[in-house]
């Protein structure tokens, strides 16, 4: 029987994917769980395992083509009836996120529409769908069978449909890229990497998500800002001393970032409110300290996460950051690399910025920046004037969670920790 494979959802806000490469040709055999297609999204590249064993009969999407999640991309002819549990498993990526099942959508046979059997689990979802779920699913053009139910016994609730509708705005779940391309701007288009005046840059999925996230954060979290000036002379010297050894041992450049993250983590431990999340049920003070590191790429902004950063030494933080930056540049970040951040560090001083007011990321309570390190004449205790390495650090805070009292306490603590680091010792 034929099984239609659909474009999987590789991340909670990802609504479309591009077939990067077919790893199998039509007519070839595929084993269940064997990768048969490579899919790329704005954030992740992944090999998709086959849901059933059989013969790859038809490719419905060309290489390089981008389609909405849930769109049929291939048909595999299996010798025996596929077991539904296997299908769901096969389509799950390395994450707990809901992934639309490999549902057997209507397949085209001899030019005629024929309805293939649908897996038992997804049929249940349909059967148990309440009138409200059916109505909302219709309105938002969402296939209930692709949702992960949070109701009793895994039932898809009206809330689940609404949540899905929110993460796929404007019916993106059914709008494929070609449809958007069908209406080009009169003066032509250019790309984000090479913007041409007088043209319109079509929104990539990444740009859409950045726009949506930034807007959401700015609209929901009342931002307030505070800045401290940190004398990083000693930690700078320390870094200079350890730099070449670290690079030799670990293969990454040693920047000020891991030192700063270490100080941030310790300050977060002292001020748990800064490592928190506002919800209408209350302020969730988080156990884990997972530090997001904002990485700017030419056409994208990405914030991979160093998990349990409080358990890592400066050296380990340096390695973790180096790995993530490396993966980001090579477009190799996986879903797990991007999830679970509780606080964000933004190292945006590399190009000389000395002051910024960043937008808070992903519902966290704050984001802190490392501005450019500059040599400046500074008045020291005892009124001596000295040339010191100075760095500003700017905190944006969610004023629903934090007040100035806690925020300035956090910043003062961070400053003290940075200033007392180095210049001796090993990282």
């Amino acid at each position, binding site marked *: 029987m034929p099984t239609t494979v659909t474009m999987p959802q590789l991340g909670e806000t990802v609504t479309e994917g591009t077939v990067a490469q077919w790893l199998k040709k039509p007519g070839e055999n595929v084993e269940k769980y064997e990768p048969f297609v490579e899919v790329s999204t704005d954030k992740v590249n992944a090999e998709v395992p086959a849901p059933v064993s059989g013969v790859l009969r038809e490719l419905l999407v060309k290489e390089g083509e981008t389609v909405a999640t849930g769109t049929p991309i291939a048909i595999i002819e299996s010798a025996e009836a596929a077991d539904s549990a296997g299908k769901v498993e096969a389509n799950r990526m390395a994450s707990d996120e809901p992934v639309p099942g490999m549902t057997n959508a209507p397949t085209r046979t001899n030019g005629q529409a024929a309805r293939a059997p649908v897996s038992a689990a997804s049929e249940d979802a349909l059967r148990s769908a309440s*009138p*409200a779920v059916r109505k909302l699913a219709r309105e938002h053009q969402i296939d209930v069978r692709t949702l992960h139910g949070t109701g009793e016994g895994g*039932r898809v*609730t*009206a809330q689940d449909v609404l949540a899905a509708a929110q993460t796929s705005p404007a019916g993106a779940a059914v709008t494929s890229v070609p449809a958007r391309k069908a209406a080009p701007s009169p003066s032509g288009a250019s790309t984000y990497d090479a913007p041409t005046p007088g043209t319109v840059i079509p929104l990539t999925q990444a740009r859409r998500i950045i726009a949506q996230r930034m807007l959401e954060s700015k609209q929901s979290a009342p931002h307030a800002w505070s800045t401290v000036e940190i004398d990083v002379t000693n930690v700078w010297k320390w870094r200079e001393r350890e730099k070449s050894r670290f690079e030799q041992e670990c293969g990454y450049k040693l920047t000020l970032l891991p030192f700063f993250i270490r100080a941030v983590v310790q300050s977060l431990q002292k001020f748990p409110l800064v490592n928190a999340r506002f919800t209408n049920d*209350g302020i969730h003070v988080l156990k884990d300290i997972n530090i997001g590191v904002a990485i700017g790429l030419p056409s994208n902004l990405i914030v991979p996460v160093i998990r349990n950063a409080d358990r890592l030494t400066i050296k380990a933080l340096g390695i973790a950051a180096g790995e993530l930056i490396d993966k980001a540049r090579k477009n190799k970040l996986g879903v797990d690399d991007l999830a679970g951040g509780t606080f964000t560090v933004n190292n945006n001083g590399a190009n000389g910025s000395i002051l910024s007011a960043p937008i808070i990321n992903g519902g966290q309570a704050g984001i802190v920046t490392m501005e450019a390190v500059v040599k400046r004449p500074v008045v020291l205790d005892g009124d001596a004037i000295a040339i010191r390495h100075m760095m500003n650090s700017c905190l944006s805070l969610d004023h629903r969670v934090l007040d100035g009292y806690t925020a300035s306490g956090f910043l003062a603590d961070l400053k003290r920790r940075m200033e007392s680091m180095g210049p001796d010792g090993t990282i």
Partner: protein
Amino acid sequence: MAVTTSKMTASSQTMNNVEAVRATLYEALKNDDRIIILGEDVGARGNVFLITKDFIDEFGPQRIIDTPIAEASIVGIAVGMAMEGLRPIAEIQFADFIYPSFNQIVGEAAKTRYRSNGEYTCPLVIRTPYGGGVRGALSHSVSVEALFYHVPGLKIVAPAFPADVKGLLNAAIDDPDPVLFLEHKKTYRLIKGEVPSGHYTIPIGKANVLKEGTQLSVVSYGLYVHWALEAARALEGDGLSVEVIDLRSIRPMDRTTILNSVEKTRKLLIIHEDNKFGGIGAEISAMVAEEALFNLDAPIRRLCAPDVPAMGYAETLEHEFMSSPEKMAKAMREMVAF
């Protein structure tokens, strides 16, 4: 007359439900000579809950009439009074004894306007204490609303709070047609609240959203409104957002408030003390199913008394028959989780 109050301010007084009934009746008697109170023990005895205590001394036996133990006569005489221009307030001592007057209420009072083609109306209020939870056993515990609910031409009111008692009793007295005014006897002295001074009315047929919520709508009335509110507030601590609606008027029913709420929460739980089969909840569920099926994300649920002939006297039986804030919270949790 001295209305006993624990606190008094210029614009409102704290009263319990008994005091609210008493104060409202007193003001009505003072302000309108057409008002007559008749019933068993309303005169010399001053009503079994002392609601009309001393009224007979101030207003005389022609306006505060002690009747024989004959409920059909009480209502029948009152119907005649009402048709001829008086404003009788008939009392049935306990709702459990209303049955002999059924024909007078349903067959006469409710049909007067229709039968006379509008020439006569029947501006009659029938007050009666109802409900259980007071160890009243099988003849002092009954809920009678569903027996009369089916009858066009009859209004039924069941307030839960002192301020609503006054506003709705005034509205019932002003109403040109018969109103069955149900007073839950367990709330009589249990429930206290601020009651605005002076004459005011609350429109019959208007429910009250006591607590807003987003995950579940709970509709109730009478004593159970208080328990439902208690349960819903307790669940707030666990992050559950339950909306509680006090129906206040059973007929006409405030469809708009119920439907607006269900549209928001998509789930409906109806709680009443009366038994389930053919009860008020049945009508509300049918109405919502007809009007708002495509807003429902869960089957409508009714939490009601079992279909047994009466509430037992034994404490265990009464406990089993009655709901409780705990039973309500359990049902609310289950529905939110569904």
